[in-house]
């Protein structure tokens, strides 16, 4: 018996196989991108061709799931057509919504596909009523994905001041810098989310084993070092260990995974229409486990036990094995 839908569970799909896994695991909606720099998970071997997307939309719709297509990077000067084509292809494939952040892309979508639902990607870093209002009035966005730096109270207040839906992250990698406004990656490697659709690109990652320590480098800079008894991690720049005032620490953020399962009911009451799981670059096992766990939590929002069961189920899939409720609890700042 299907539970009454409280909030929409929006799940990542890096490949067609992952999309099928997400839908089978109970996703209300899935989001995915094309295999090029028009989306912010432009990793090698990942994402969809146009025909794969069309098939995926048919598959998902057949099972009652919506498909959102991310065209959420910033179009390159002189090459804006690539992004326009991505929007057109998504519309042609029957996508239910486009996620965008660049004014050029939003403009094209709003003008050429006025009936296609437009969502504002977190890459637009719009976390205030004024910013969201600008995009709503100028492009008619229907939903904004909120930056991961707002507390539950702030989200509640925000929802009273805007007319569009909000979607909040509930699991996955946490971006500590304002999303879509970060050049740390290009400083070290020449590639960044806004320039090429990747952060801390694998092309510039090197793991070096010597004696006991495993060193993870990005663009030649040492980002972290792991002892034999420590879990290894990917050298995402802002999750690294650095020395300041003579002491080594995870200066910007610990390599933890966001898990807001315990806050779902609060977020729902704060007005969130959708819960988003991050992880298009993660595999089918991750998607299946995470979506299943969160779907059961979403289906029984008031059930504390269901919420508490999520974290242990997902322990092996989290980086460093550690989870956090992130900024949703105000002490994060």
């Amino acid at each position, binding site marked *: 018996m299907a539970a009454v839908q409280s909030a929409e569970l929006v799940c990542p799909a890096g490949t067609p196989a992952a999309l099928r896994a997400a839908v089978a695991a109970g996703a209300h909606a899935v989001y995915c991108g094309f295999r090029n720099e028009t989306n912010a998970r432009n990793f090698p*071997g990942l994402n969809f061709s146009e025909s794969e997307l069309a098939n995926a939309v048919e598959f998902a719709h057949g099972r009652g799931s919506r498909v959102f297509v991310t065209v959420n990077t910033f179009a390159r000067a002189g090459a804006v057509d690539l992004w326009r084509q991505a929007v057109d292809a998504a519309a042609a494939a029957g996508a239910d919504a486009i996620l965008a952040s660049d004014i050029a892309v939003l403009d094209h979508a709003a003008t050429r596909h006025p009936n296609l639902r437009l969502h504002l990607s977190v890459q637009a870093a719009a976390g205030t009523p004024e910013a969201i209002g600008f995009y709503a009035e100028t492009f008619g966005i229907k939903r904004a994905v909120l930056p991961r730096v707002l507390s539950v109270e702030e989200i509640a207040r925000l929802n009273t001041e805007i007319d569009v839906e909000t979607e909040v992250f509930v699991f996955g990698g946490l971006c500590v810098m304002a999303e879509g406004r970060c050049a740390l990656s290009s400083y070290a490697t020449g590639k960044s989310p806004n320039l090429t659709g990747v952060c801390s*690109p*694998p092309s510039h990652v090197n793991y070096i084993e010597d004696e006991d320590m495993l060193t993870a480098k990005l663009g030649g800079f040492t980002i972290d070092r792991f002892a034999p008894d420590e879990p290894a991690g990917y050298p995402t720049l802002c999750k690294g260990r650095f020395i300041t005032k003579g002491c080594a620490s995870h200066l910007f953020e610990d390599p933890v995974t966001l898990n807001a399962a315990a806050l779902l009911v609060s977020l729902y009451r704060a007005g969130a229409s959708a819960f988003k799981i991050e992880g298009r670059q993660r*595999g089918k096992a*991750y998607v299946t486990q995470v979506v299943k766990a969160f779907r059961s939590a979403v289906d029984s929002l008031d059930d504390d036990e269901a919420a508490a069961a999520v974290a242990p189920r997902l322990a*092996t899939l989290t980086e460093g094995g550690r989870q956090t409720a992130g900024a949703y609890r105000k002490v994060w700042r």
Partner: protein
Amino acid sequence: MVDDSSRGTVPEFVQTLIRPLPRLPLTLVLTRIVRRFGARRPEVFERLAEYDPLTLLIDPSDLPFSFRVRLAGTRSQVDVVGKTAPCEAATRVRASLLVLMGLLDGTYDADALFFSRDLTIEGDTEAVLALRNAIEEAELTPAELLGLTGLPAHLLDRTAGDSLALLRRQLGAPAPSHVARGQ
């Protein structure tokens, strides 16, 4: 937390038995399997198009040899090489045999096993990631790899699945990353 690649390893005596076996037959068989797979499922290799050929060394920590794999669709090549042989492949993936097989058929999540140090990677991280994504999409089972269909496929996958699960438990391999297929 244990050392890398020691969970779920094949026992010493098995390694001793395997060591003297001739390698050429294995080389030929594996090469043929990969090439035929490339012919049947070209879209999987499509995902690796920009790396054609993608060369890497698959190093089972508990076998006395390694596999130098050159992925190029129907021109793919698998060679069985000694552990100390000089290797042109700059990229190496190392784990116990059971873990490697579990990565192939989706029992294990590559990220989880990387975090837990059961899997180590050296060299071209981008190529390994591309391969991981291609494998994810390929949905490989033993039958899929061999090109079987219908009842034989179903039987092989079932048998292989059960045997591997049993072996994993007996050898103390990491727990599967998700609930097994069919459950």
